[in-house]
């Protein structure tokens, strides 16, 4: 309709495809109305999705940087995410972004990488993994540790048990808190699994998941002697503007929307304990 100049005003986009990942997670593939990618992004960045009068919320972009769509994996956990889960392909949706400081993937070149994720935390991590796999020769060994409550709760099963498992020089370790439901693999929590998988290697770590998991995994990594400036994670806070102005998402003097969501462990330790 009109050119948009205001960073707070979204553009009209279209939901092209919806993938059911788990009983409460769906992945939405979104393009602009003309079929193009709404904007470029880097792994770890986020965007605001909204539907008029239904709400607006920030989600991490889960597709790799070279993809021609934006993909968002959304867990059903409140009124707006419920409404999103009821959407159908072809439906219009409002999008603005990209927001935030991404994972510095170019700094990761020539490094071995260890991705650790729990639950829906694999969504931002997937963007980094796939971006790195798209330039496989630039990175060293890739290890992926992923855990969820149970087998049905694992997101991106196609990648976990297909694309990533089959990729060059890449290992995937999947664990669930609770066995059963046809699961015959590893059972146990992510932090413990980390020391089993990586007690003699010191790759760059990319870690995302629920706060408790992050806390215990960071403690485990510190114990294993990982250097803080080589461990990256993401933080979550409520957001409204996405551009460091509405005053909502700060932890100390840092705004998660603008200065994060990606923080290195040494940066994280500088912040007051309010996350």
């Amino acid at each position: 309709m009109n050119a948009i100049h205001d960073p707070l005003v979204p553009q009209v986009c279209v939901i092209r495809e919806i993938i059911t990942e788990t009983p409460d997670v769906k992945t939405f593939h979104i393009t602009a109305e003309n079929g193009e990618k709404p904007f470029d992004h880097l792994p770890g960045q986020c965007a605001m999705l909204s539907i008029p009068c239904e709400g607006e919320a920030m989600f991490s972009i889960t597709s790799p940087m070279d993809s021609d769509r934006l993909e968002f994996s959304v867990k059903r956990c409140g009124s707006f995410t419920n409404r999103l889960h009821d959407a159908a392909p072809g439906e219009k949706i409002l999008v603005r972004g990209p927001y935030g400081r991404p994972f510095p993937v170019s700094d990761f070149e020539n490094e071995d990488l260890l991705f650790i994720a729990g639950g829906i935390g694999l969504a931002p991590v997937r963007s980094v993994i796939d971006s790195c796999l798209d330039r496989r020769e630039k990175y060293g060994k890739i290890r992926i540790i992923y855990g969820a409550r149970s087998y049905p709760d694992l997101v991106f099963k196609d990648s976990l048990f297909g694309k990533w498992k089959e990729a060059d020089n890449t290992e995937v370790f999947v664990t669930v808190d609770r066995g059963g439901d046809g699961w015959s693999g590893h059972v146990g929590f992510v932090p413990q699994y980390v020391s089993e998988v990586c007690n003699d290697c010191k790759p760059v770590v990319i870690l995302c998941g629920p706060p408790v998991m992050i806390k215990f995994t960071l403690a485990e990594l510190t114990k294993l002697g990982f250097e803080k400036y080589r461990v990256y994670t993401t933080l979550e806070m409520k957001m409204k503007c996405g551009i460091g102005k509405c005053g909502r998402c700060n932890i100390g003097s840092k705004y998660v929307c603008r200065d994060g969501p990606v923080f290195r462990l040494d940066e994280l330790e500088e912040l007051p304990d309010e996350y």
Partner: protein
Amino acid sequence: MYKCSKESLGALLSAINEKYALYVPKKHGEGSVSSFEAYGDGENMYLSGITDRGIKELFFPQCEEIARFVTANGAFGVKETAVKSGYNVIFGARACDIKGLQTLDLVFLAEPEDRLYKSRREAGIVVSLSCGEPSETCFCTCFGVDPSKSGDIAAIGTDGAYYFEILTEKGRLLIPELSSVCKTTDDDIEAERDKIRAKAALMPAALAAKDLPDKKTDELFDLPVWDKLSAHCLGCGTCTYLCPTCQCYDIKDSKTADGAARCRFWDSCMYSDFTKMSAGQPRLTQKERYRQRFMHKLVYFKENQGIYGCVGCGRCVRKCPASAHMIKVIKELGKADERHT
């Protein structure tokens, strides 16, 4: 410099009002809330003290539309709200409120600029009025505010006259109106200004708040005194709504005939909803919210912008129903500094 008699002020303001939308401080009787309103017939002007509500809302309104969505009849379109052009004039602003605007500028005019705020800022010609009678709760001098001189044009009242000094290019736009009512003069008013400055520096609140905290974030954040300071805070948000530097906002939609209007509203970090997510609540009690407000003004804002996020207007001191205000916080955090150094 321009000069007019006290009696001629009305004529000057009427001349300005002919050409521009003019806002002046008004108070409608004892006990009512004073604020900036359209000049109108010039009745109920309130020039003798600082207003309850400041000039912030003329630049960053409590509620404003940012976009419209048209969703009726199968349409789905977005139209961003147009910005208004043309100048308006604010007369009688206090130096602390003007410093408040400069503080907001650091947030709203940083990339990416807030276009609605920016357009109002560019449109607003601000005429300050010197503060001859500071309130006993004012402490602007602690933050480097000069209560005698500020804005695009600085007005100062002396015994029988008003003087107007143009301080910026934008201020020059009012030369025709000033010339129509005032005489130009070479009178030296620095001595008058010095009197105002001297008086302001001795304000009791300014003396009480003079030791601003300058300690590491973590030490101040972890002080046990936050429990005591916040114990009576009601979470009413009065301090944030009246504060000339509080910038927090919410974004919400409301239904219109053919779709929705997206608006932004003032919000308050003192409210429990402010940071509540379906995934959790990082600031569980009023203590955390209270600490956030004051740490932001005195520590985080300074870390990010190089200046404090308080201008010492004293509104939170006068209006907090629980008397849980900035001066108490500064005194306690200042003490913390002494203990550590």
